[in-house]
């Protein structure tokens, strides 16, 4: 579900924010945290834990607006409630030619202090243009 939302959300985001193309993954991370999250959810997550190769980082959310009124019941204690967010990020970035892997590392719903989402750059997606074009 999140993936489908992300695929459409990116257009809305680009239309509203008018940011240009990002030159590297660090810039992408900045734009996601400072512009996109702020615009749609009203929060600015922190960016930390960069891997030495510069292709993985963590988004730290002090508070997650999606779970303001939510508690996980016992029979669903392993549910990743906000996994929608991961799909949204993955779908949106795929539409701008970046394949990424997004997953939850910490979740306040499960008792952790903060919510941490880990994003890993896999590769740049090359557009397959039909022969004869470009």
């Amino acid at each position, binding site marked *: *579900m999140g993936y*489908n*939302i992300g695929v*459409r*959300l990116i257009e*809305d985001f680009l239309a*509203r924010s008018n940011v240009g193309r990002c030159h590297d993954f660090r810039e992408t991370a900045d734009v996601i945290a400072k512009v996109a999250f702020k*615009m*749609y*959810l*009203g929060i600015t997550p922190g960016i930390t834990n960069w891997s030495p190769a510069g292709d993985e980082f963590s988004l730290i959310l002090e508070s997650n607006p999606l779970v303001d*009124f939510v508690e996980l019941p016992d029979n669903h204690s392993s549910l990743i409630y906000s996994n929608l967010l991961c799909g949204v990020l993955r779908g949106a970035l795929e539409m701008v030619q970046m394949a990424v892997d997004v997953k939850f590392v910490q979740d306040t719903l499960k008792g952790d202090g903060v919510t941490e989402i880990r994003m890993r750059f896999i590769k740049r997606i090359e557009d397959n243009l039909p022969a004869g074009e470009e």
Partner: protein
Amino acid sequence: MADETLFQLLHTEVVAAAYGGGRGSGDEGQRTGLTVLEGMGFRVGQGLAERLPRGALVFREELDTIKFLCRDLWGAVFRKQTDNLRTNHQGTYILQDDNFPFLTQMAWGQQYLEEAPKFLAFTCGLLRGTLSALGIESSVTASVASLPVCKFQVVIQKA
């Protein structure tokens, strides 16, 4: 905050999910899908009724409550107000929205008329849930003559 887009996109996915997995095929599937969506809307409406600021509003009569729905509930959820309200003063109200946000992106006119009810079910439940939390039992149906104009008919159940 640009969250009306978020809600629209989420709603589209929820409708798809309610009908997905082979559940949506046939009349039986259609009814189940609509019931699921209406149920979701109902619970959201109940929660929303408690959170919406009502200030010192005292609903002296039913009409005030319905006007609250048209102005404040619609404003909170869709960032606009309903365009028209009609009543027969005997418990039936028709709320008309000439530019219903879930339908504006789909089509203008008669195209997709059969699909429209799926996108209205959640909102019917939303109205019913909000009224229920405010102490009024009702039944809500929606009709579309031509996208994106739609009418929600609220019939108050007399105790």
